[in-house]
């Protein structure tokens, strides 16, 4: 009888297992782009930045077809009339497609495109320690995305030139209870002139001549306008920063990522430094920076001119450790700064995983001396390797 019982139970178990397996659903799959991967490879037919070339404005505010990638990068710190503080980031990325992808079929299509655009909009509520972010893509077709000298846009997120400055309008509409919208309407008026990074805008990032980008910045921009959050519009003012960069395969071999600092000091100076990080977590000799005086004069910095040391790491839910506090030293210029995240959780969790957030700049004894933005890249990629 035991044997029969065993057989019956076995049969029932087999049937149950089969039924269970039939009702299982495969897990959702989602992918993420590697930030460094996007920047260190490019097929041969793309143009490369191999030496200094004169830049012309406003023409060079528009896009530069023929290069693998290009971006328009605003960051800034704002405050409303009640003194609440906010950080913001708005970036347009253009990734050119290679020729074989573009021309598989000879006929024309309305959707034919040379490039794909990605936009990142983030808002940090510094007092409430809340981070809002939205990512968008569009192709460079049907007028969905593009950049001329007068306008940069991805769908309805636009930056329009207004004579001396720009008007930025980026709104994430709120839809019902589940998602309150957020957004920015800012007038951006440069307080300093354009500065050319590297050698007259030729910014080398590796040993090969092509491991370079064309790179210019406006390090201090007066921002004023409205910020939308929690269904409320608030009048805000503050300082913004613009970075413009384009190139192909600009990152050299053996790089894991970078740590980029854009600091606006209360004494009127602006400091940009970035550390290109090698596989073994050291600063690449191609790390560089720029120090802009209050009157707009500037000095390009090399790897030996500054020292960046992480002093605290924040571990996110995935277990990735992001260095959110730093000591920045430039003895030759008498600078010894502590840079710390306004709050830790300012991590992008979209197609590209990186940390980009508002930071506070403190002096040697902890006194506030400025504000800025910090970008940490490549940590999620190396964590998943």
């Amino acid at each position: 009888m035991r044997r029969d019982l065993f057989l019956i139970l076995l049969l029932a178990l087999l049937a149950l297992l089969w039924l269970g397996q039939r009702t299982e659903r495969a897990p959702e799959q989602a992918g993420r782009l590697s930030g460094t991967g996007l920047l260190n490879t490019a097929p041969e037919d793309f143009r490369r930045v191999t030496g200094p070339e004169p830049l012309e404005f406003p023409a060079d505010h528009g896009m530069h077809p023929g290069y693998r990638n290009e971006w328009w990068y605003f960051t800034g710190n704002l405050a409303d009339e009640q003194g609440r503080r906010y950080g913001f980031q708005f970036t347009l990325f253009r990734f050119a497609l290679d020729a074989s992808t573009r021309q598989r079929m000879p006929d024309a299509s309305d959707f034919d495109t040379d490039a794909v655009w990605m936009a990142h909009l983030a808002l940090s509520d510094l007092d409430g320690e809340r981070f809002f972010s939205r990512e968008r893509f569009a192709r460079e077709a049907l007028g969905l995305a593009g950049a001329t000298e007068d306008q940069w846009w991805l769908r309805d997120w636009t930056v329009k030139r207004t004579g001396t400055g720009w008007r930025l309008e980026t709104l994430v509409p709120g839809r019902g209870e589940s998602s309150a919208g957020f957004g920015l309407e800012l007038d951006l008026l440069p307080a300093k002139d354009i500065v050319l990074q590297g050698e007259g805008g030729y910014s080398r990032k590796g040993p090969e001549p092509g491991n370079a980008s064309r790179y210019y910045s406006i390090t201090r921009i007066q921002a004023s306008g409205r910020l939308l959050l929690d269904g409320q519009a608030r009048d805000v003012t503050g300082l913004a920063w613009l970075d413009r960069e384009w190139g192909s395969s600009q990152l050299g071999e053996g790089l894991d990522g970078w740590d980029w600092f854009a600091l606006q000091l209360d004494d009127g100076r602006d400091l940009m430094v970035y550390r290109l990080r090698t596989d073994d977590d050291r600063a690449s000799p191609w790390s560089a920076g720029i120090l802009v005086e209050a009157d707009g004069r500037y000095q390009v910095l090399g790897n030996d001119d500054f020292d960046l040391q992480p002093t605290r790491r924040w571990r996110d839910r995935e277990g990735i450790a992001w260095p959110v506090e730093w000591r920045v030293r430039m003895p030759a210029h008498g600078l010894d700064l502590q840079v710390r995240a306004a709050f830790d959780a300012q991590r992008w969790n979209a197609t590209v995983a990186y940390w980009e957030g508002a930071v506070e700049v403190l002096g040697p004894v902890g006194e506030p001396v400025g504000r800025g933005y910090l970008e940490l890249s490549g940590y999620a990629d190396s964590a998943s390797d």
Partner: protein
Amino acid sequence: MLTRLSHGHFRRHPAQVLLALVGIAAGIAVITGVALLRDALVESLDAVSETLVGEQGLVVRHVAGEIPVQRYAELARMPGAPDLVPVIRAPVRVAGERLELIGLEPWSGIRDLADRDGTGLATALFAEDESLPQVVLGRATWELLGRPGDGVLELRIAGQSHRVGISTIVDGQPGLDRRLLMEIGEAQKMTAMQGRISELLAPQDSGDWLAARLGEDLLLIDAAARRTSAGDLTRGMRANLTAMSLLALATGLFVVYSVLSFLLVQRRARFGLLRALGMTHPMLARMLIGEVVLIAALGGLLGLVAGTLLADRLLLLVAPPVAEVYGRFAPVSTQPSMLLYAGIWGLGILSALAVTAPVLREALTIPPGRILRSSGARRWPISRVLALSSVLVVAGTAWILLDARLIAGLGGLFLVLAGLVVLVPAAGFGLVGLVAGLQSGKLAGRALRLLESARGRLSPALAALSLALALAIGMGMMILGFRATVGDWVERLLRADLYVSQPGRPLVDEQVEHIGTLPGVRVLSSIRRLELVDGTHVTAYRLPAEAWWGFEFIGGDGDAAWPLFERGEAAIVSEPYARANGLSAGDRLEMISPGGPVSLPVAAVFRDYSSEQGFVAISRELYRRWVGDGMHDSVGIYLEPGVEPEQLLRELPAVGLDDPQWYTPASIQRETLAVFDRTFRISWALALLVGLIALVALTSALLAQGLERAREYATLRALGLPPGRLLRLVTIQSTGLTAAALAAALPLAALIHLALSLVVQPRAFGWSLPVALPPLEPVLLVVPVALVLGTLTGIYPAWRIGQRPVSAYLRADR
């Protein structure tokens, strides 16, 4: 102890346990199969938008069918616009399979759909270093296409061939079944849809924003509307399936009843003994209920497995016609849930307990110490049977007549059948008795009379058998009758000698006129189809007077309608359209034509089997006034007497058509019937399934009766009946029982045929079938098979008796 008792009995009678398991499993399998199939044909049909933008996602379509691509660009750039996904959809053929090409924007909200090296759908479709356009497809589709090893597919779109590379195979996305995902730009080139897209997908929460901005040309379709539309499309098909599954379950339960009651009757003597030994009623009840639950539970599990496999097979049968007839794409396999399984399993156990309740009650009435076998169950007086039957038949008929819905048609038919089935035992045994009387004195007469003594036990089996046989035969009759009707209809409708069209694009007026001037052409007809904003399907006919009579008018006066139709002053409507919209000849028809709202008189209603939604037929003249684009979908050519179609085909190239396709009426009729056959494959499959259940019912009933009577047969042997005579006796009994079941089944089959043709078809699909004599082929097929099987199942018990000593069967305990 109780378990041991049950076990000991089952151990000695494995065949009966097996039969009970098979009976339950068969019933559960059919229910499961149909439930899963229903799900696939409603919830998952065309589930691609759910897969792409979530279950509650929205779809935007254009009233004229396609969205101008600039409309999409405008919408997408408006302030506050949601993440819209532009989509191009087109039917394609790959390796003989009908699939759908979905061109979409991988750089939109759906970019996480596929994953390759962690970079999403976009990387898959924009794969660099690939010379061919890339597609993403689900694993099930990949397997459906025979796992192409070289990673290259050959697509046929509107007569053209294209090669594409397989970039990524996605797991666990049934909404992608029978679909190929492609980058929208490549898809637009392949489908020659420059300037247009098929639809926009939008996230669920963008409904208000969209509704405020779509304008009059774009329609917002939410998930509920999509499911309703899919549900409406396949309603008729599903209703037939559901009805069949319920009838199959009923038959399966008959089998269960028959087998379980037999298991009980065998142990009647033992129960008497146990009661005498002090076993109480509750103990006995517990034991018997335990047995039923165990058998039902195990049989139920097996049935769930079998039903799932069955549903997947049926889905493969049903998917091609669904794509062909409705233009919708079903998943490759069904998507069961544990909840559904648990529900059906519980239902199976409860049903088994319910049908065995009378048997249990009977067992509990056995008095202690009763050793001798009862001579059979109590029998209802014939007057009570007749009364019950009449009530059921009258109630069923009344329901059908008073309620015009499909559910009433099916429910009423169910009641009428139930009413007639309760008469089957009386009729069947009456017949057996009649034959026995005619053969009295002979072995056959004696054998048949012996059956009478087991009447109580055999009655349910006989009824089940008749019902199952009747269903199999009746469905076969309906399908064949319908097929003949459709064949006649097509033949009558197609009056021209040759039909010409251009795949993927319409003919223009100049080309049509040019054809008219070719030598040998006497006169032309043409058709043009359009779908109005309000969803009405309209066909515009240019007809010579002789073609008018290709329509078979079932409402209105054809003679009087012709001039009105010709001048564009009236429309005629197909029967399904008339039925769905409650129209008849003389009513007025309100539509939103391309030129605005119109009201037209309905001049006549014509027979049509081409679509369940039905359509409105208007004249070419009216179309010209409405649209005026000079387009024709196909042209019918009437030749001068003596001119052969081949002669004309030689002239056709002069017209300058692009890859013209031509058809003769015979080839269209062949193709129509081929579509018909594919559409009804599932009905055939179900008829076969019911036939198989009938087989199980037959085998179980006859084997049970043969085994039950083993002791009687042994007595006959002991009294000197030679083995050969015994064999004849037993086979005469089983064959006689089968013949009785068949005799009762044939009139029932004719009734099912009539009910399906005259009640269920019109209510499910909107069309009626002309009354005709039922086709006899199913009878000719089923009757001999059943009789042979009936004979064979008699041989086994007789053979078993021959194998063991007679004394073994004579012990009272058997």
